[in-house]
């Protein structure tokens, strides 16, 4: 709850959020799948400055901060252990780990800074040369980046670990081509670091799983990283490489060719590879490979969604009902489509989009009952209740009750004209066959009631104008 309030973007109404382009990074990939041309819809030059959002930036910086802290911890540990005699191999591994983390940091930093740029075309901030002049450089850079790591991997396949390569294949399977940083940044040593991060130990055969697939495990950082594709020129991060390709068009005409815009062909040896399955890094989770009855996840996307749904806080609250919380943005979007509309509630709190489903549910479970949505006029009924209690409190003294404030339109009709009948009714109320209580006095009081029709007759004045004996009689009978 508290954290929700701290994060302003979640408090925005949904429609506003969907208008803000930057918010797309809070959406899961599957939500974006259907909008491959998302980047196209944004006139990049004119709206670029609007891309900048403090919340996003804050999130990115927090991520970077945490990462730095982690690296610091590792280095601290290394410094502490340097005195002690250690295996050469372990020290090297740690070094690789630090390198990998630093690479990740740099990439994130560039991506964050890239989104800061108001417009790439108008500033020579990053490249140091106007894009028109520096096309050649850009081409060379982009060539590396667009050829992607996969080329590098396939080239370096023998020297790097096969797992790393497989991992990337898996990411392509997940319709989400990983492209960390510019191609030039990633070096062979970094690959080793990645290898560690992804847990090569996973190779050891697990107790139950069939040998038909390999199990890989991503770390939390990778799962939660906001971007996976980065522009090699400006460093801007993207979730999907299609978006990156669209973005690249802004860097020069050479990126606009059909070849550059085409989806990179799947690697030839994809079919021969063993199938990949993924493990959740959360210890004790059923999707964790160490779990007794391990159930692997099929794709990276599944990992991401599973991890967010199961092990992350549900940060996205539905603005309409305020009750439902989600950790995956797409889930919230799906919910909001139906929230408030066609809500069929059960007393147990379960809600259904269809009435027949609700009734089937109610029929199935003992004691469950259809629940009505809270009435919009709940305050009105409360208001009607309160005067009722006050009227009851004042009733013994004044001799008859007032109508509630909510019924003011007919209040004077009743209280002024029927004021005297009230006393008579106390006696007559039972049989309705009373006699002897009607007299000229009664008729007279009717005239009175009508005479004061326009002015509200106050209870006490009415009581005083009544024939005194009748009034006392009535009070007596009421007391009895």
């Amino acid at each position, binding site marked *: 709850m508290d954290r929700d309030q701290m994060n302003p973007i979640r408090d925005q109404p949904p429609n506003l959020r969907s208008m803000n382009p930057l918010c797309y990074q809070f959406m899961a990939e599957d939500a974006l799948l259907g909008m491959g041309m998302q980047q196209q819809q944004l006139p990049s030059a004119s709206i670029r400055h609007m891309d900048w959002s403090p919340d996003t930036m804050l999130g990115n910086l927090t991520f970077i901060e945490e990462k730095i802290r982690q690296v610091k911890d590792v280095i601290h540990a290394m410094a502490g252990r340097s005195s002690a005699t250690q295996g050469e191999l372990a020290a090297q591994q740690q070094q690789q780990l630090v390198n990998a983390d630093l690479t990740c940091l740099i990439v994130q930093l560039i991506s964050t800074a890239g989104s800061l740029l108001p417009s790439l075309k108008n500033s020579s901030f990053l490249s140091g040369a106007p894009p028109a002049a520096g096309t050649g450089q850009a081409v060379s850079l982009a060539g590396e980046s667009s050829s992607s790591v996969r080329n590098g991997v396939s080239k370096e396949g023998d020297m790097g670990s096969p797992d790393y390569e497989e991992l990337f294949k898996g990411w392509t399977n997940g319709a989400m081509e990983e492209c960390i940083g510019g191609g030039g940044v990633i070096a062979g040593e970094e690959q080793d670091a990645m290898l560690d991060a992804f847990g090569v130990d996973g190779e050891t055969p697990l107790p139950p799983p069939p040998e038909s697939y390999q199990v890989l495990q991503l770390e939390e950082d990778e799962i939660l990283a906001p971007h996976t594709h980065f522009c090699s020129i400006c460093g801007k991060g993207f979730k999907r490489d299609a978006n990156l390709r669209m973005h690249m068009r802004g860097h020069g005409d050479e990126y606009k060719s059909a070849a550059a815009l085409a989806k990179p062909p799947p690697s030839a040896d994809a079919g021969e590879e063993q199938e990949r399955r993924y493990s959740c890094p959360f210890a004790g989770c059923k999707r964790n490979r160490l779990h007794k009855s391990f159930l692997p996840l099929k794709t990276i996307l599944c990992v991401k969604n599973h991890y967010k749904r199961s092990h992350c806080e549900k940060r996205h609250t539905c603005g309409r009902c305020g009750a439902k919380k989600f950790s995956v943005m797409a889930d919230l979007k799906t919910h909001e489509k139906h929230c408030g509309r066609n809500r069929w509630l059960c007393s147990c709190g379960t809600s259904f989009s269809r009435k027949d489903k609700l009734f089937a549910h*109610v*029929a199935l479970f003992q004691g469950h009952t259809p629940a009505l949505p809270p009435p919009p006029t709940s305050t009105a009924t409360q208001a009607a*209740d309160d005067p009722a209690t006050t009227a009851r409190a004042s009733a013994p003294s004044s001799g008859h009750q007032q109508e*509630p404030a909510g019924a003011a339109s007919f209040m004077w009709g009743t209280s002024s004209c029927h004021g005297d009948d009230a006393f*008579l009714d*106390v006696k007559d109320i039972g049989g309705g066959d009373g006699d002897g209580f009607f007299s000229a006095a009664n*008729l007279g009081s009717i005239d009175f009631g009508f005479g004061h029709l326009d002015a509200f007759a106050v209870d006490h004045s009415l009581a005083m104008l009544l024939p005194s004996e009748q009034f006392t009689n009535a009070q007596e009978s009421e007391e009895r």
Partner: protein
Amino acid sequence: MATPTQHHKRRRLSPLLHDLADELLFVILDRVAADDPRALKSFALASRACHAAEARHRRLLRAFRADLLPAALARYSAVSRLDLSLCPRVTDAALAALSTAPSVSAVDLSRSRGFGAAGLAALVAACPNLTDLDLSNGLDFTDAGAAEVAKARRLQRLSLSRCKQLTDMGLGCIAVGCPDLRELSLKWCIGVTHMGLDLLALKCKKLKILDLSYTMEEKIAVQIVKNCFPAIMKLQNLEVLILVGCNGIDDDALTSLDQECSKSLQVLDMSNSYNVTHVGVLSVVNAMPNLLELNLSYCCPVTPSMSSSFKMIHKLQTLKLDGCQFMADGLKSIGKSCVSLRELSLSKCSGVTDTDLSFAVSRLKNLLKLDITCCRKITDVSLAAITSSCPSLISLRMESCSLVSSVGLQLIGKRCSHLEELDLTDNDLDDEGLKALSGCRKLSSLKIGICLRISDEGLSHISKSCSDLREIDLYRCGGISDEGVTHIAQGCPMLESINLSYCTKLTDHSLRSLSKCIKLNTLEIRGCPMVSSAGLSEIATGCRLLSKLDIKKCFEINDLGMIFLSQFSHSLRQINLSYCSVSDIGLISLSSICGLQNMTIVHLAGVTPNGLIAALMVCGLRKVKLHEAFKSMVPLHMVKVVEARGCVFQWINKPYQVALQPCDLWKQQSQDLLVQ
């Protein structure tokens, strides 16, 4: 009251009463009340002890004003039934003010408006032992209200007739919340669909009586009939199922019932379900062999095969085929197949002939009630057969059997001496026939309106022998005069209802003699121009239970009569004042009658809009009929105020017509209309 002196005083006042056990006292009070309902009032006013005893004895509380309920409930602690039908408006606040009343088990809100879910919640909370609840005509009743009603877990009988806003959600709440429900009326609940009914059938297994009339209209009923009809039919304890006007039920739905229908069903009413044919009836008959009563009025033509299929229902006692067309020999086969029949209703049937009816009744020896209203083809032959083969008839209704002669009608009195209810309206009855009827000593209801040939002499025969007569209808019997009415009034002290409309010869003398019938509650003297306020004052002072009064076109009745009514007739519920000489004063004095519900005030020359609205402001009417001309004369905001208090306005636009037609001319004209 706790002080010793007061206690002593109380003992001194009524030592006998104090020693009497409450049970014995209550038996005495019951007997006294049966004799004269007003006696309890006098008893309660005799002393404090009597007052307390009467308060303990009272079981039914019929309130005039809902806001005084807390005081009334505090006094009458043993009340079990709370009837609010005289309160046109019951507000949420009035119900919220109720303190806990564990003795109350039945509440009637059927004619009240103005309360919502909050009020119902308070009511249910205040009455933990509520078993009966009548919320009929609750046009404002919503699902939220139903959800509150569902909290009354002991509810056994619930009526939601005409709660048109109720949907499946509300019904679902009730079905889950009230598992003990035995009787439920969902008549005209057009918002309910198969899902709610399905859930009801699943959750309320104890249902005995279920009324689903008019819920299954043709267009929307496909789902209901297909999905939940079988489920309802399978309810194990269902005894009465009423499906009036369910056009959605057709032969397909009924044929699917075959073997899976509850065997407990005893009464089935499918009148006005015109999509049912003999095929569907056949499957009903096959599926429900234990039926006692079957109502197929206005459904389908009766064929011989259909009638003969009734023999599958061995125990059938009541068969209603009103408005059906009888095919050749259809009626004969009923005679063959339904031997155990006690009640047969053939009113407005076409194709009922002498031969068929004679044959049928000759086989139906157990027949107790027969309705052959408007069977215009039958003659004395049928009547001879009826009277000879069914001498034990209790009820015979044969209005407008125009071919039956006066000689034939004499047979009724001669042979059917057990008759309690007889309707001979618009027949050729004469004094001889009435003389013969004097043999029916148990007669309690006699309707002989539009029998122009009867006279005072005939009525004297009736009055001499039928001392049990409760209801007599002498509508447009132009031949009778004060003498005849006096005979009736003297001979029938139990008389509760009399209709003397358009008996133009009557004067105040008739009313004076009728005022001796202290049980009289309904008096219709419409179109008796010689009756005046003097006569009405006699009625007002004599007949204190008068609740329904029609004095339309009694031109002589003026404000004086109204003042007498307002002073003495505190039971008055309904009055028709049209064409009277009543002015504002009369109206305003009338409005002091608390329980007055309905008022018809059309063509009253002496009434001004101001006087009218003054009267309406004072009395808590439920319905008032006014001439349309008043609509523009009465201030709109006044109308709104009166409406807000629960009153419904009905604007009449009829021409002013003073002249009274002689009865014979009127009858001739109406017959001419019929021929056309």
